[in-house]
């Protein structure tokens, strides 16, 4: 069970949240000029890392606000929680995985 620190409400159990997947995928501004392959990259291709994942969560049963989380997909350790629109913080992992 994850204990997720909502930046607005504090630490809550994972079942209060909905997961909103990979963060920092910016919608392209030059859509008309993009090829189908570029659209495929934007729409479907994902990093899916074994290690630090920058992802969005929504506090569905609390403040109902979205925020970003940097979390380890192997240990589930949460390294950082930051508001939407903030840049992804660099994370140094001890075991360098």
């Amino acid at each position, binding site marked *: *069970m*994850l204990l997720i620190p909502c930046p607005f409400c504090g630490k809550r159990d994972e079942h209060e949240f*909905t997961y909103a997947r*990979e963060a920092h995928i910016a919608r392209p501004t030059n859509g008309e000029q993009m090829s189908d*392959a570029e659209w495929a990259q934007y729409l479907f291709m*994902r990093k899916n*890392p074994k290690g630090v994942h920058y992802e969005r969560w929504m506090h569905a049963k609390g403040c109902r606000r979205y925020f970003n989380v940097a979390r380890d997909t*192997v240990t589930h350790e949460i390294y950082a929680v930051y508001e939407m629109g903030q840049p992804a913080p660099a994370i140094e992992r001890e075991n360098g995985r």
Partner: protein
Amino acid sequence: MKQHYSIFTLARNAVSYHENWTEAWRSPDPKPAYDVIIVGGGGHGLATAYYLAKEHGITNVAVIEKGWLGGGNTGRNTTIVRSNYLWDESAHLYEHSLKLWEGLSQDLNYNVMFSQRGLLSTAHTVHDMQALRRRVYAIQLNGIDSEILDREQVAAYCPILDCSPNARYPVFGASLQRRGGVARHDAVAWGYARGADARGIDIIQNCEVTGFKIENGKVVGVETTRGSIGARKVGVVVAGHCGVLAGMAGFRLPIESHPLQAMVSEPIKPVLNCVVMSGQVHVYVSQSDKGELVFGAGIDTYNSYSQYGSPPVVENMLNALTELFPIFGRLRFLRQWAGIVDTCPDASPIIGKTPIENLFFNCGWGTGGFKATPGSGHVFAHTIATGEPHKFAAPFALERFTTGYLIDEHGAAGVAH
């Protein structure tokens, strides 16, 4: 020397106190190079190797597995086998596989304990029932067995399912695929491994692929924890780790890795004669030959490579199970575990070429690839051997995410499995 397995071999070995069984496959050191390297010793990888040898005469092949055979999702799944998929592309692929299952124990001379005990998919609302009808008619048009049962027929077919009008999730009816069922998961991996080994294929366990050797956009080998090994072609079949391996080769996949959990109860006398799955309430259950109830439900929602899974999912699964089968309410549970599944946006697999020449991927089977093990191996072996996709694999190419020709089996397949 390969022993042929039969009642006589069994009797002969019984007389010598089972001390003279020979190993089912060798454990050779890797050669410097192979014609084909298969990365991943799960059912799909081993089946691919087997059919490369059997159908295409390609035997200078190694299967490289980082852990032990079947230690990934193959040995962790709830073993439901069926072919009642909505879309033509999936129907062809999964039915191809089901037909191979029907002769598999004979073909491999290895008992995979394939049991076609029938598979019920229940409907719990009017709309559920409408969707189910549409699905069954589509499946029938593809010549695949599937029928609709009303509530009374369901109650007669599976008496312990709560079909009373007062049930929390009333049963409106169900679809039934009589040829569906379950199989012994490890046996599938072991049977294919033994068959591949007997045809000269090297099976190398405890050897992790850590990178690809790529020259001018073409793969020429793999880096492993036991040194680098050359290869003319490489097939990658690593399920939840496909994103990691694609990263090593420098491209991305439309796949995210999630834990999928399963559980077994204490063993009890036979009470459940078929497989029951409910997409609406979301649980599926069968009873193993040992008597344990084996069941599972949906994925943990967030990306993860940790093979355990989180408690809220277990709670939902148990709620669904005990509402559908009140009789299970007082059972105790033995074990819970998870495997890392490779979920694709359209819930269909990706089979075929990649941006790197001679590097092939077979992944994205997500929560439902066990049933496809023979078919997947068969079409992937063809794809690797000829360099062109097998006709059943062609629609499942990676390019579909560029062309938009997705094969959306979400929900359409009834439930995740």
